[in-house]
């Protein structure tokens, strides 16, 4: 059989029986794109691409690209929490990219509470302290307006980490709620959460960082967000195959090691833009 014929046959087999095709790779302990079961895709980070926003980050994990912009504005606080700022986020999916992708909008919307939860716990508490200093003068409020655009949604939870990447600058208020654009201070970030996604196959095999195709074939997914002190910010396992405690523990250990790798990357990027 010629080489060309072999490739065509493999493609045909993949279309007809995607699960069997995938299982053949799993038997050899590897994946169609050549990665090991516990290997992540190449991660690239780019900061400051959007000049109009206070801070921005572009994160690329394999072929998933997420761009996030952060803007701080002066606004009235919510009625029940007069001393705190709040985060408003909205997401949009580029539907022109893949017409079959009506699902990511629900995935995106479903991911919003998860994201809001993680970011509120890690950044806003510090923001509260920042505001209280001002509140002795008068009622100071800040609204942080997050927005992100998921271009290709293979890995819908990675953008959580992209938000922590920009060194955001907020405007300082002086006197009577005036916005002084000249004076800017960096936003204090308390923790840097990093998300790791896993997929479970046939209730037994656990793979790290699944692509869109792998997620479709998987019987379950798990997403774990950890921070620097190896504490869990969030565990998200929405149904799917059953996991024992030990398997869950394995996922968490892998997520902690991943956190260290990503933290090194974040530090490198932030250091590189410091002189600016």
């Amino acid at each position, binding site marked *: 059989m010629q080489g060309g014929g072999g490739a065509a046959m493999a493609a045909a087999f993949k279309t007809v029986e995607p699960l069997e095709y995938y299982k053949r790779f799993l038997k050899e302990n590897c994946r169609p794109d050549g990665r090991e079961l516990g290997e992540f895709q190449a991660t690239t980070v780019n900061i400051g691409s959007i000049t109009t926003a206070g801070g921005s980050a572009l994160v690329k994990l394999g072929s998933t690209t997420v761009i996030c912009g952060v803007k701080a504005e002066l606004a009235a606080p919510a009625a029940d929490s007069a001393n705190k700022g709040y985060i408003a986020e909205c997401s949009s999916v580029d539907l022109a990219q893949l017409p079959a992708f009506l699902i990511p909008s629900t995935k995106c919307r479903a991911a919003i509470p998860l994201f809001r939860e993680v970011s509120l716990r890690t950044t806003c508490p510090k923001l509260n302290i920042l505001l209280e200093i001002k509140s002795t003068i008068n009622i100071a409020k800040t609204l942080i307006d997050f927005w992100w655009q998921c271009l290709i949604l293979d890995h819908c939870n990675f953008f959580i980490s992209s938000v922590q990447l920009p060194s955001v600058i907020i405007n300082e208020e002086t006197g009577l709620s005036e916005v002084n654009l000249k004076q800017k201070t960096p936003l204090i970030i308390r*923790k840097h959460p990093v998300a790791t996604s896993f997929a479970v196959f046939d209730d037994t095999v656990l793979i790290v960082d699944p692509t869109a195709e792998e997620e479709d074939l998987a019987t379950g997914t798990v997403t774990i967000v950890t921070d620097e002190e190896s504490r869990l910010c969030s565990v*998200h396992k929405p149904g799917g195959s059953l996991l024992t405690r030990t398997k869950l523990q394995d996922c968490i250990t892998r997520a902690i090691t991943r956190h260290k790798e990503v933290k090194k990357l974040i530090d490198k990027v932030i250091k590189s833009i410091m002189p600016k």
Partner: protein
Amino acid sequence: MMETVAEPGGQCRLRPFSCEQGLLSRPDGSAAFLQGDTSVLAGLYGPAEAKLSKELPDRAALEVLLRPKVGLPGVLERSREQQLRQTCEAVVLGVLHPRTAITLVLQVLSDAGSLLSCCLNAACMGLLDAGLPLSSLFCGVTCALSPDGTIALDPTARQEQEARAVLTFAIDSRERKVLMATTKGSCSVEEMQQCLVTAQRAADTIFQFYRDSLRRRYSKS
């Protein structure tokens, strides 16, 4: 109309819970589950004919709708619906009913803490009432970690607000494995494992309750 009440005591510290099955006439299965003051009503329709756009060729298409007590369903409800749907899909033997639709409608009657686990329990009882084929049962347990580190099972709304972290688990009945896990707030890995162990123990009480309530229901008829 079967009503059963359970008063779990001792180590579990769950609030008293009760369940009523078969209370609605239209749906194929219905159940109302009460945990303390939190109550959720579940109605199950199916397996029924699916719309062409929604039908799957090899399995039943499961849809979950969660209606809050006040207001329109928002982003939080969508997220919960997705979690519930994937949990139920893992348990319902959908391959026995291809190209059909199973719809689960949950109505929150009152929310006094541990809402997600109450929804899970109501969903399971609804599935049992409808007589759908299941590979195992499941139950929901919520744990709240107070700032001083004590674990409170089945927390009230007040305990949830004061807690440092709230964890909800769906445990399956066969081997007490984790079917669904969601956490809100940060906790250490050991604390999460401890909560999981406590939740698995509490699940025993709930599964015993399921058994008793079904035994009572079918022994009379």
